């Protein structure tokens, strides 16, 4: 993306996110209190995060690649299972990938 395209992307996406936040504060509660709406919204967040984990770990542009990111994610998962705090999980993930790459892994 060019610098100008990135500016447009950043500003438009930010305004969309801000409008969504404001909409939540302004709409009457009963509009969205329907269980089906709330349930769908919660599941959309889960699906997006899960897909982002997958893409961020095995996608390299439009190719699939198994590299140091995958074992790093494994270490992060173990840390989460052991109830490690957020920051420990992130640091362990980065550290694992950094050490594996220092050892010669892609």
């Amino acid at each position: 993306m060019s610098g100008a395209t990135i500016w447009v992307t950043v500003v438009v996406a930010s305004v969309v996110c801000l409008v969504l936040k404001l909409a939540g504060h302004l709409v009457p509660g009963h509009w969205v209190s329907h269980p089906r709406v709330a349930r769908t919204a919660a599941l959309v967040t889960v699906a997006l995060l899960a897909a982002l984990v997958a893409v961020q770990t095995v996608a390299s542009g439009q190719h699939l690649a198994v590299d140091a990111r995958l074992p790093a994610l494994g270490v992060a998962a173990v840390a989460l299972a052991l109830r490690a705090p957020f920051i420990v999980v992130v640091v362990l993930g980065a550290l694992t990938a950094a050490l594996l790459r220092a050892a010669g892994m892609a």
Partner: protein
Amino acid sequence: MSVSLATGLYGISLGALAVVAGLSVPQAMVLSLLMFSGGSQFALVGIVGAGGTALSAVATAGLLGVRNAFYGVQLSPLLAVRSWRRVLAAHLTIDESTAVATVQPTVRAARVGFWCTGVGVFVLWNLFVLLGALAGNALGDPKKYGLDAAASAAFLALLWPRLVTPVTRWVAASAVVVAVVLVPVVPSGVPVLAAAVVAVAVGWFRGDRTGRRVPGAAR
């Protein structure tokens, strides 16, 4: 303290990743100040970095921001503010401030909790994104420091506490499969959006009048 520290390091990773993805330092800062929602920001930066389209970056960031609208519905009667304070409250409506506000025993404590957490995270978050963006320029190759893996770990950590029911686990697993299968065949950013469609379908039609159930949605 631990919330601040987590915010700090999370912000540094975002700032560094943003610069590496091709954003300038001012762009990274406008994104942080104006969007102020960690998951959406990471998603936008990831898609820009992977060469995705502007449309998919906006759509993914926006869809991840939908949960903030639902937080706002919960917070609005609790905070009971008007005019510009309402806009400010909306801007500070994020995972952390909502989580703190909604577990307080009294309305007063909820309001104090919301504003303190919201303002505190806002200041720290933007400060550390700036540090990360400046460091990102100096660091060079982010892969050397495993910053790409840090983003994977961050998304997993955001996802983890949500995997509490069979349905959420099933949706998460399906989303992973859909996204991975689509990566080689569609432009960057689209696999993530396609995974969201799975969630909409499951959320909308699960256990409807026809009695059809999604596999794994045992109750």
